[in-house]
């Protein structure tokens, strides 16, 4: 059982490093705001970063529940189909896709 002081130290370290990582680039960017590099990166990055997050989240779900990859693929297909066919309503697509996965995992 860890001591309270140890837990508090972990919390302090976590807060400082996380905040510094989130804040530091803005300080540097202040001087780069006009640069074409930053402009291009801000245009190119979002779709790629979101794709990478999607893949790692997919992997996280499947690794966390071994043997569920066969359920995750159709659930993801439902998510994409609902999103493209039902007017890109995020909450609807996320709800139906997740419900598909949860039902398959728990009922089959």
């Amino acid at each position: 059982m860890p001591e309270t002081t140890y837990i508090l130290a972990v919390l302090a370290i976590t807060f400082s490093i996380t905040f510094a990582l989130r804040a530091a680039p803005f300080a540097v960017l202040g001087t780069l705001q006009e640069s074409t590099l930053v402009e291009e990166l801000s245009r190119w990055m979002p779709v790629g970063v979101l794709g990478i997050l999607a893949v790692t989240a997919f992997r996280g779900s499947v690794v966390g529940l071994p043997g569920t990859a066969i359920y995750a693929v159709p659930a993801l297909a439902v998510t994409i189909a609902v999103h493209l066919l039902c007017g890109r309503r995020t909450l609807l697509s996320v709800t139906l896709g997740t419900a598909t996965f949860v039902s398959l995992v728990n009922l089959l």
Partner: protein
Amino acid sequence: MPESAQLTACGAIVAPVGRRAKVLAGITDSFSAGLGIFPFGIALGLLVMQLGLPWWVAPALSLSAFAGSLELLLVGMIATVEPLAAVAITVFVVNFRHVFYAFSFPRHLVRNRFARLYATYAMIDEVYAVNAALPKSHQSAARILAMQVACEIYWVGGGLVGVLIASLLLGPIKGLEFALCTLFTVLALDAFRSRRQIPSVMLAGASIAIALVVAPGVALFVAMLIFVGLLLVRYAIDRHHTGRSESA
């Protein structure tokens, strides 16, 4: 696809006007993210109790880190009393991706100094992702902050619910974390606005493929590094080409 058609497809042609409408839009944005965050919070609370840590570790971690995957890792590290240096390195590696968000997170919209500090502290994956998928005209300080506060409430609230469930010995719902995967997928679809994005998608695909093979344990971190590296190469090649065509 023309921009106007895209906006119609999103179901929101007009950008929200007025503070109230913007805050409401931010809270609405948070719902889809909340579906992923809240169960994640529950998982955190359950894990804290399962490992025999004091209940307040769940909300305290959520407030100090405010980053899902990292918190689950840290709970395990606290339970086994890992050295603080190992904790520091883990936090640095797992959260390093946030460095790249600054390039395309519209923090400059937030004028108030304290609100800006909060917006920086609360720049989590989900908030970055939802904002990145919004058209520029729809982004605003009130909308960003409202979503951030809502997400933090889901996180801390989810953790407390997890603690409660663990003390009542109820089982969690398996597979709910899949909501995060569906959310990021849907947002990636929305961010894919034109054919001009195809190179970015291909570079991101290559990055994550390499990362999963080379370093599956820290795939997110490695993929981000490779992706940004590839974008820098792309930028250099683009410049080289435009430089040549101008001089020709």
